Structures are given as C-alpha cells and as structure tokens.
C-alpha cells in the first residue's frame, strides 16, 4: 500500500513548523510586550492569509469577501462574551467556526458555480452584506460596536494566536499536500471538467475547501475580538482586511504552504516599521502597491521562490566552477 503525497518532505515542513513555533514560544521571555504584540499580529495575519490561500491558491477561486468570516468570528465571540450570555472565551471559538463554516457552505453552494470575477464579486457582496447587517442589527451593537471583557495578558493572546495559526497551518498542510482531498482541490483548480472526468465531485470539493478557508479566519477573528477588547464594523469587517491578506499571499507565494506566512511577516513588519517611523501614514499603501507590481514583474511566485532561485544560482555557480576546473590544463 503506497499512498501518494506532494508538497515536499512532510518531516521537513512540519519539523520547520515545530521549530518556528518553539522558537517563537520563547519570545515572551526575551522581549518586551510591544514585540509580543507585533508577533501576535503576525501570527494572526499569517493564519488569515493561509485561509485565503486555501480557496484561491489551492482551489483557484478568488474570494474578495474573506473579511466576512473574520468578522463573523469576531462578532460571534464578542456577542457570546457579553454579560447577558457570559460564555467562556474558549467555548465561543468552536461556535464561531461552525457559524462561519455554515455561512460559507450556504453561500458557496450557489456562488461556487460562478467563475472568476463573478465569484469574486459574489464574495465581495457577502462581505458587504455582513458589514451592513452588523451596522443595523441591535445585538451586534450597530455602528457603535461591542466591547469584550478585558484581559490584560499579552502573553495569553500571543500563545493563543500562535497556536491557532500553527494548528491551521498543520491541518491545511496535511489536508492539502498530504491527502487525497488536496489532489481533488488542486484538480478542480487546474481543470474542473477533467476533474469531473476523474470521478471527482467538484461542487462538493469546492464547498469543502471554501468551508475550510472560512473556519480559520473565524477562529482568528474570535481571538482578535477578545484581544483588542472592542470591535465594530469598521475594525473587523473593513474591506482593507481582505485587500491586505490578498497582497500578503501574493507577496509570499500563492498556492504554496509557506507563502502566506512569509508574506504576512514581511508586510506586517513593513507596515509597523512605517508606522513607527512616519506615524499613521498612507505611504504604506503606495509602498505596498509598488511592492505588488515588483513581485508580479520580478517574482511572480512570491518570496518563497527566492529559496528556489538561490538554490538554482548555487547550482549554476557550482556548474561554472566545475567547468572552469575541467577547462584548466
């Protein structure tokens, strides 16, 4: 019995993940709360970007409404933690995941029949609808938003966010690179008609991938709501969140397991550095725009491809060296 798998060496990939998580776990003992908050933000963005990579990079469907699931998660946690409900924080996360997953399945059923720009518009409309609903509904606090209980513990949020992002990475890696589900998803991305001819129920696979990609931001959104202690439609349902995570994935490497984490780290650090250096400025948008153009032109496979290029360059240098040696009398 020998089952196939792609996506490189699993021991290496999951080993790197364990090492990264272990190294980051030491951070609270080594640095100030400011850097802990930065690291928490990076973990959150890496997780959300990873989720978008599932539906776009692996399934080939561009979602411009992914912020909806982040917002649904944030609002679910915030609502359930209100004094009248008084839920435990941990209990709110599975509920957030289930609600976001159900919304994704419900919307995905008709929307995933659309292709390209039509699907992108449908998901964008979903995000707008969710934002409008939270603005007008009473139990979401309207435009005034909701507060969550204050927990003044940066380390707690750092470890929670890191664990959620790491688990999301491990689950996505195993499902998309090491299981037959991943091959089905990628087959749909590459050629839907051919995928059906291989016996793949493409409608079901697309919905499953969409649900998976919705659950992750919902959980991260729930953690974020507790972390930042106040949410409103502008903070957790802002379209800029989708824009940002799309850019992170493109910069990091679309359809690659490590791409979103790399892109999220690079862009979040860049954004933070600009904020520290120049205060709240729109220069970030200009720089990100230039960065996206540079990536599209010179690094279409994103930052992850740098390692491959470096390897190739090393190989070229070795070959040149060998040729010179052979040419030497």
């Amino acid at each position, binding site marked *: 019995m020998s089952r196939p798998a792609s996506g490189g060496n699993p021991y290496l990939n999951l080993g790197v993940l364990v090492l990264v998580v272990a190294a980051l776990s030491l951070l609270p003992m080594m640095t100030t709360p400011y850097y802990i908050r930065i690291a928490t933000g990076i973990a959150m963005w890496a997780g959300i970007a990873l989720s978008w990579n599932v539906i776009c990079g692996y399934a080939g469907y561009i979602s411009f409404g992914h912020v909806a699931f982040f917002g649904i998660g944030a609002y679910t946690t915030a609502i359930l933690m209100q004094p009248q409900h008084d839920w435990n924080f941990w209990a709110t996360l599975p509920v957030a995941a289930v609600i976001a997953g159900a919304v994704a399945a419900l919307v995905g059923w008709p929307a995933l029949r659309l292709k390209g720009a039509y699907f992108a518009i449908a998901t964008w409309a979903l995000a707008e609808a969710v934002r409008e609903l939270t603005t007008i509904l009473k139990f979401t606090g309207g435009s005034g938003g909701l507060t969550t209980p204050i927990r003044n513990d940066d380390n707690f949020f750092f470890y929670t966010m890191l664990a959620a992002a790491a688990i999301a990475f491990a689950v996505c890696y195993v499902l998309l690179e090491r299981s037959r589900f991943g091959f089905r998803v*990628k087959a749909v991305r590459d050629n839907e008609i051919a995928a059906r*001819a291989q016996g793949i129920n493409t409608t079901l696979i697309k919905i499953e991938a969409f649900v998976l990609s919705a659950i992750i931001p919902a959980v991260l959104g729930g953690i974020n709501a507790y972390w930042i202690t106040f949410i409103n439609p502008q903070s957790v349902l802002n379209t800029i969140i989708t824009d940002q995570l799309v850019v992170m994935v493109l910069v990091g490497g679309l359809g690659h397991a490590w791409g979103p984490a790399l892109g999220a780290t690079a862009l979040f650090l860049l954004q933070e550095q600009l904020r520290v250096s120049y205060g709240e400025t729109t220069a970030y948008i200009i720089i990100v725009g230039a960065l996206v153009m540079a990536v599209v032109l010179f690094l279409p496979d994103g930052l992850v491809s740098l390692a491959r290029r470096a390897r190739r360059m090393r190989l070229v240098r070795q070959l040149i060296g060998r040729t010179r040696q052979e040419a030497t009398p």
Partner: protein
Amino acid sequence: MTVLAVDDLFRSFGGIHAVDGVTFDVEQAEIVGIIGPNGSGKSTLFNLLTGVLKPDAGTISLFGRNITGLAAFRIARAGLGRTFQIPALFVNMTVRENLWTAAVQFDWDNARADADAVLERLELTHVADDLASTLSGGQQRLLEMGRVLMQNPKVALLDEVAAGVHPRLRQIMLDAIRGLRDAGTTFLVIEHDMELAQDICDRIIVMDAGKIVAQGSFEEISHDPHVMEAYLGVPTSE
C-alpha cells in the same frame, strides 16, 4: 455482453441538431471507432455519454444501468473514463501527480505503485516530475492515456487520442489500448486517422450531421455510399 447501449439520443444547440437520434450498442472488449467529418457530432456524442452535456432525449445505459443525465463524476465512478480532444491536463501538477489524481476516486491505496508502472509503460518516467504543462503535444496525449490507465475504467472513450503524436509514441499508445482491451476494457474511439482506425477498431460507426450514416467493419464502411458522400461529397445516387 452489451456494455454500453445508446438509444435514440438527441441533442441540439439552437436550431442545430448536433446529435440526432443516435442508437448503437457496444459489446464488452470491443474497440469501436467513431468517424465522421468535422461537425458531425462525434465530440458532442462523447460529451453526452460522459455527462458533460445532458441529452434532450434518449437513453444511455452502462451495464444495463441507466446513466442518462447523471453528473459527469457519477458516470466516471460508474466506470466510464475518457480523454479529451484538446488534452485537459492538470497543468500545475507534475506528470506523476496527474496520474495520482486520476486514482483519487479509485485505487488510491496503490496509486503510487500503479503510477510508476504506467509511467514506465508509456515511457514517461524521465518526465515524471516535470510539470504537465511542459510536455510536448504527443506526451500530453500519452499522459491523458495514462490517466485512463490509472482509472482502469470498464469503458474508455478516446477522443483523437493519437492526433499529432509521433509514430513511436503512437505505437506505445496503441499497445496500451490493446493491452487494456485484452484485459476486458471496452473502447469507443473518435479518430480521423483511417489507417489507425483500420488498425485497431473491430467496428466503425460513421456519423454525419449528427446521425449515424453507416456502421460495420472497416471494409464494409469504406465501400458504403453514405460514407463516400459524407467524406468525399459524392452524392449517394451516383
């Protein structure tokens, strides 16, 4: 034993009758060629049989089971595999991964070993880890054939599978078809190459303007006046 039975199948696009009352049976381990001029309805017929298109009327039975109008993936799972007129590969996957993907609904547990065997049989081992998009046209058709081998279907529909393929690769492909046929697989083959049709087909069905105009052995159809008319434009009355 009748494996595939097509009864009075109709499909039109606007005012054009692409498939117009087609009826035929295919026996087990038979290789049936479907020939006809461009636009005669051959590929539409394949798309109807494989569930890509739904027929306006008529029935299709696979081993006595009515599969008319079933979703394409259900028909594939029922044992009907196919290749496409224009190779429909998973272009961002390697050759090996394309073969593995063909087994996701079938013998997944042995997919790795099966793929290695198919790669060797089709002489694709040297490009196994290359992206499918980098293959030559002939190799792409071989890879499509490889996916059919991985599925191990009861009935395989091959759409111009040898078109533009190098003679040596073509021989490899024909050997694979004959090998599968000897193991009991039934074939329906769309082909423009008469030499190839004569070489491998037990029976030929000739289509023109969506209808079957003749069927029989290659010898029989090559003297059929309807075929002469369809191919050479010579009126039947002459």
